[in-house]
C-alpha cells in the first residue's frame, strides 16, 4: 500500500518541486524589472508570501478553500472527460454559461425567499452548463467534430454571449458599469468567515459522488471502458455515442455548477467581461490529479492555495499573479515528461506510470477524422 502510494505520488510531487525551482529561476531573472537589480532572495520572499497568503491565517485558509471550490468541480469536469477518452477544454465556457444562468435566474428571484431562489439559481447553472457540454458531446458523437476544437470555439462564443446579454438586455440599469442585477436572496449562505460559502461543501460532496459514479456504477464502468478501449466497449454492447454525449453533459454540469457557485457565492452578479482562468486551471488540476476524483481534490487544493496566496505575493514581493499560470504550465510540463523524470531520478515502478498513461493516452485518438 505504502509502496503503491509512493509510486503514484512521487512523480507529481517531483513535478511540483521542479516547477517551483523553474519558477524561482524565472523570478530571479526578471527581478531587475521588479526591484531594479538581480535579487537572489526575491523568489524566497515570493514563495513565503504565497504560503502566508494561503495558509498563514484562518482567513487565508478559508480563502484557499473558496479558491479551490470551482477548481474541484471544473477539475472533475475535465477529469470525467479524460476517463471517457475525451479532452474537455470547454470547462471555461461551461463555467461561464453556468455562471450566467445563475446570475439571470438569481437576479430574477433576488427579492424572493432564499429557499426558492438558491436552489433555482443553482439548478439553472447546472442545466445550462450541462447543455453547453451536451453540444460538443453531440457534435462529437454524431458528426465526429473533435471536442478539443469545438469546446475551445464554444469558450469564445460564451464570452460573446455574456458580453451581449449582460451589456444589453439584462444590464442592471442602476449600475455604473455593464453587469447583471445583484442576485440578492439567491446568494449562497455563508458557513464560516467572510466568504466561506456553502459551495465549499457542495464541491466536497461532488468528489465522492463522482468517485462513486465512475468506480461503483455500471455507467461509470462503461465510461472508463469506452475511454480505455472504444473498440472493446462497442464489442461488449456499450453505446460509445451515448457515453460521449452523457460524459460531456456531465462534465458541463459540473463546470456549470462551478460557475453558478462562483457567481452566487462570491460576486453576486455577472459582469459583461468576466475574467477567469478556471478553465485553464481545471485542465492542470485534472492532469495533476491523474483524472482521479481524490487526486483532483488535492490538486485543486494546491492550485487553490496558489491562487489564494498570489494576491499577497503580488503585494509583498511585487510578483504578478500570472506567476501561478507559469507554475501550472511548468508542473504539467514535468508531468508530461514523466518518463524523463523517472530516468533522471532513477525511479522504478513503471507499472504505475503505465497505468496513468493508459488513462490519458486515448485523447489524441480520432482527431479530426470522425468518431
Amino acid at each position: 500500500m505504502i509502496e503503491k502510494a509512493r509510486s503514484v505520488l512521487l512523480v507529481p510531487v517531483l513535478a511540483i518541486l521542479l516547477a517551483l525551482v523553474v519558477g524561482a529561476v524565472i523570478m530571479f531573472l526578471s527581478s531587475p524589472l521588479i526591484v531594479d537589480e538581480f535579487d537572489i532572495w526575491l523568489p524566497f520572499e515570493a514563495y513565503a508570501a504565497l504560503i502566508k497568503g494561503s495558509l498563514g491565517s484562518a482567513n487565508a485558509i478559508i480563502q484557499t478553500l473558496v479558491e479551490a471550490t470551482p477548481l474541484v468541480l471544473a477539475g472533475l469536469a475535465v477529469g470525467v472527460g479524460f476517463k471517457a477518452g475525451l479532452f474537455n477544454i470547454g470547462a471555461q465556457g461551461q463555467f461561464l454559461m453556468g455562471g450566467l444562468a445563475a446570475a439571470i435566474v438569481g437576479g430574477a428571484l433576488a427579492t424572493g425567499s432564499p429557499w426558492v431562489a438558491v436552489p433555482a439559481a443553482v439548478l439553472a447553472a447546472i442545466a445550462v452548463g450541462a447543455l453547453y457540454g451536451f453540444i460538443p458531446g453531440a457534435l462529437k458523437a454524431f458528426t465526429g467534430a473533435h471536442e478539443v476544437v469545438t469546446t475551445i470555439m464554444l469558450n469564445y462564443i460564451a464570452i460573446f454571449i455574456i458580453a451581449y446579454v449582460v451589456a444589453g438586455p439584462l444590464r442592471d440599469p442602476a449600475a455604473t458599469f455593464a453587469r447583471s442585477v445583484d442576485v440578492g436572496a439567491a446568494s449562497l449562505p455563508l458557513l464560516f468567515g467572510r466568504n466561506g460559502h456553502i459551495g465549499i461543501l457542495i464541491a466536497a460532496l461532488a468528489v465522492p459522488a463522482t468517485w462513486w459514479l465512475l468506480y461503483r456504477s455500471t455507467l461509470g464502468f462503461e465510461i472508463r471502458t469506452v475511454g480505455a478501449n472504444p473498440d472493446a466497449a462497442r464489442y461488449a454492447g456499450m453505446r460509445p455515442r451515448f457515453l460521449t454525449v452523457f460524459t460531456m453533459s456531465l462534465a458541463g454540469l459540473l463546470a456549470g455548477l462551478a460557475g453558478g457557485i462562483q457567481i452566487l457565492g462570491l460576486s453576486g452578479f455577472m459582469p459583461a467581461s468576466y475574467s477567469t482562468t478556471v478553465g485553464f486551471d481545471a485542465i492542470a488540476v485534472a492532469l495533476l490529479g491523474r483524472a482521479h476524483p481524490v487526486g483532483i481534490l488535492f490538486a485543486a487544493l494546491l492550485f487553490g492555495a496558489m491562487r489564494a496566496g498570489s494576491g499577497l505575493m503580488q503585494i509583498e514581493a511585487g510578483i504578478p499573479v500570472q506567476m501561478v499560470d507559469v507554475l501550472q504550465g511548468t508542473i504539467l510540463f514535468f508531468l508530461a515528461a514523466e518518463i524523463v523524470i523517472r530516468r533522471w531520478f532513477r525511479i522504478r515502478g513503471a507499472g504505475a506510470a503505465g497505468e496513468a498513461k493508459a488513462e490519458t493516452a486515448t485523447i489524441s485518438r480520432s482527431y479530426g477524422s470522425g468518431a
Partner: protein
Amino acid sequence: MDILFDIPVIGLLFQLVAYLVQILPSISPVIVALCTPIALGALCGFMNERSGVVNIGIEGMMLLSAFVGWTTAVVINTAVPDQEPIRELFGATPALVIGLVAALLTGLLSSTVHAWLSISVRADQIISGTIINIFAFGITGYLNLLISAASPQSAGSFTRYVPPAELTSLPFVGWLAKALLNQGPIVLAMLVMVVVMQILLFRSRWGLRTRAVGEHPKAAETVGIDVIKLRYRNVILGGLFAGLAGAWFTLEFGNSFQSGMTNGRGFIALAALIFGRWTPLGSFGAALLFISAEAIGIAVRFQPPTGQMADLGSILSGIPSQFWTALPYLVTIVVLAGVVGRSIAPAAVGKPYERESTG
C-alpha cells in the same frame, strides 16, 4: 435591380449579394491581412499533422513569438533611438528585423519542445500542446505586466507595399491586385509560402516522404525513410510559421502586445486546416472564409447598406456586434461538424511512433 430587390424575402437575398459585391473591394485587403495568422497557423499545423503529429499548441507558440518579437524590438528601440526606417524595404528598422528574427527563433524553440515531448518522450500530443498554451499564456502575461509597468517605447511596425497604380486601376481585377499586394511583408510572405508549400507537398521528394510518414510510418520506415528524423524536422520547421504569425500580431498588424492577444486564432487555424483537407491552399481558402464572416460585421458597422438596400441595412444593423465577432468561431464549429466526416486526416496523426528495434 429594383425589381429584384423588391421581391418579398428573396429580394433580401439579392440585396445581400449586391451588398457583398459592393463592399468586396473595400474589405478584401482587410480580409487578406486578418486571415494571415490563421493561414500561417494552418501551415504550422500542416507541417505537424502531415507528418503524423497533432499540434494544439500553435496558439501558445504564436502568443510567445508575438511577445518575444515585440519585446526584442522594444528593447532595441530603447537602446538605439532614432533608427532610420528603410522605406523601400517595408519601413524596416534594425529593431523590426531583429524582432522578426527573434519571433521566428521563438517559434522554432517552442516547436522543438513540442517535438521532443511528442516524438521522443511520446507524451500525449494534445496534452503537450496544451502545456505550451498554458505556459505561453502565463509567461507572456507575467512578463508583459512587468514590462508595461516601465511604459516601454513603441516597437514600430512594418509598412505596406504599394503596388503600381497601373495594376490596381485595372478593370475587374484591380481590386484583387490591391487586396493581395497592398500588404506588409509578413502577409506577402504568407501568400508565397501557401503556394510554395502546396507545390512542395505534391511535387517534391520531401512532400512524398512527409505524406508517407503521416499516413503509414511503418511502411515509410521499411523503404528507408527515417520517421523520427523527418517528424522532428517537420515539426520544428513548422514552428517558423507560428513564429511568423506571432510577429504579424506585434510587428506588422499592430505595434503593441496585449495579454492573450492571439484570441484563439491558433485554434481556428486547426479548423481551417481540417476544412482545407490538410492542404496549404485549401486551408488558406478556409481562413479567408472564416475571416470574411467577421469582416462583414465590420463593414456593416462602418458602411451599412443604404438606398435600394435599406431593407437589408435595417436587418443587418439590428444584429448585435458580438454576433459578428462570434461568427468565425461559430463557422468553425459548423465546418467541423459538417465537413469532418468527408475530410480524412493523415492516418498516423496523434500516434507516437516506436521503432520495433527500440520497442
